[in-house]
């Protein structure tokens, strides 16, 4: 998926005008507000909180808790009711509750960070995509056992990546605005990517002993021994090569590439395969939905993957260059042609 979103948002732009055009239309804003007032459970709760404060005035000491886990079956329900999402509690908060809950104090200058596994994480950030406060990912959604999965010892819970995989598919009987939301979809996808990434990084950080990082650390120290002594400064987190995009991952791929070169000699061809958003499949698909190619980065990636697979098939199975040995990364292919002398 793309790391880049396209946006001409200008929150820092103080004029509120852009190129002489009014950025916000008053009618649209008030209509949207009316809509959210009617159907959004979070808006409703803030309204309730406001009314409560207005009655008891400033002396009141309340805190508000946006609840992160609900008892409903998450495979069936995803629309929370007003009473389910928030609790208003008098007094200061105590610590013996779910640490993922969002606790809002009356007045405190500090910004609070929200845990990605909070069920309303997405609904709070994208009220226009999820106007009814639809549930996002949460921990402990169970997988349904099927024929293919039986007997295999696998993870029982749906992971965050799998959750987004499921959500970002187009289905004929699902009439949701998400995949038509253009730039908002792009922001959503980037946000989703960072959610998954920080979730995985947190796992790595918390599971350093399982990852046998102590051994790795010793090796690292030995290899760095010539340099400055940094080993006693703080506690470092080792990111294993299984983390895509991390330094160890890059190192491993680089060494693999060099290894093949050592074995087969230098490659005869080095192909960089790029994507053209004007490919007829993409054009047809987005035109049918009255969108532009950049509004559906998921489709671009999928068509690209199909084309790349086709190219690899042509080279490795149909032997268009003759007998070859080839390796591929995301965009680069290197090919060794076996010359018959």
């Amino acid at each position, binding site marked *: 998926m793309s790391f880049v979103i396209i946006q001409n948002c200008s929150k820092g732009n103080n004029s509120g005008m852009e190129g002489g055009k*009014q950025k916000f239309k008053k009618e649209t804003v008030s209509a949207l507000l009316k809509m959210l007032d009617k159907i959004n459970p979070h808006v409703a709760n803030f309204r309730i909180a406001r009314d409560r404060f207005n009655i008891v005035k400033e002396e009141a000491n309340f805190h508000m808790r946006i609840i992160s886990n609900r008892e409903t079956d998450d495979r069936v329900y995803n629309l929370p009711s007003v009473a389910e999402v928030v609790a208003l509690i008098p007094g200061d908060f105590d610590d013996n509750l779910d640490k993922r809950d969002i606790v809002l104090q009356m007045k*405190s200058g500090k910004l609070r960070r929200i845990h990605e596994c909070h069920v309303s994480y997405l609904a709070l950030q994208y009220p226009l995509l999820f106007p009814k406060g639809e549930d996002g990912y949460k921990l402990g959604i169970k997988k349904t056992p099927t024929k293919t999965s039986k007997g295999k010892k696998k993870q029982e819970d749906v992971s965050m990546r799998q959750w987004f995989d499921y*959500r970002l598919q187009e289905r004929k009987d699902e009439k949701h605005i998400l995949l038509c939301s*253009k730039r908002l979809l792009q922001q959503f996808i980037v946000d989703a990517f*960072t959610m998954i990434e920080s979730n995985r990084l947190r796992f790595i950080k918390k599971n350093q002993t399982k990852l046998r990082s102590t051994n790795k650390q010793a090796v690292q120290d030995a290899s760095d021994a010539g340099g400055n002594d940094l080993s006693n400064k703080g506690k470092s987190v080792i990111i294993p090569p299984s983390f895509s995009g991390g330094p160890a991952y890059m190192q491993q791929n680089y060494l693999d590439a060099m290894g093949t070169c050592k074995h087969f000699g230098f490659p005869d061809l080095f192909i960089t395969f790029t994507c053209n958003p004007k490919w007829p499949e993409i054009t047809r698909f987005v035109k049918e939905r009255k969108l532009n190619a950049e509004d559906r980065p998921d489709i671009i990636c999928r068509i690209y993957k199909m084309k790349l697979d086709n190219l690899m098939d042509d080279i490795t199975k149909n032997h268009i260059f003759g007998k070859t040995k080839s390796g591929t990364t995301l965009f680069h292919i290197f090919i060794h042609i076996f010359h018959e002398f």
Partner: protein
Amino acid sequence: MFDSDYHDEGEANHTCVHCGAIFWYGERLNRRRKSANSVYTGCCMQGQIVLPMLKESPKYMWWLFTSDHPDAKNFRANVIPYNMLFSFTSLGGKVDRSVKKGRGPSMFALQGENYHLIRALKPKPGDYAKFQQLYMMDTDNEVDNLIEVMR
């Protein structure tokens, strides 16, 4: 050896039997085989993941995203600021603005760790209400307040 015509992947007219997601034929599992009931992955792990379908979005949202009315067009051009206007939380990542807007799709990159932040129920004395705090303000001039904050 191989035909020089453009190899067209056709339309996305195949569906996953489990969850109904649409796929191109070229995306099937086991590409070498040509079978009528092909298997697709990348959506629900062949039926293992079952989540509730998203309910239909309000008609007004559909209108905003599909209509040719100037208001709807204005909304689509500024959809991210519009969303920010109503959101309860703010994005914590570092926004890379080094690429200038020009011809073609302008690029926007997010750097560093990303997270969402939420504020206290009421703003500090002398501070403006932001994000979810706006929902705690008085209703009389709410629309004006909302727009004012984004200026």
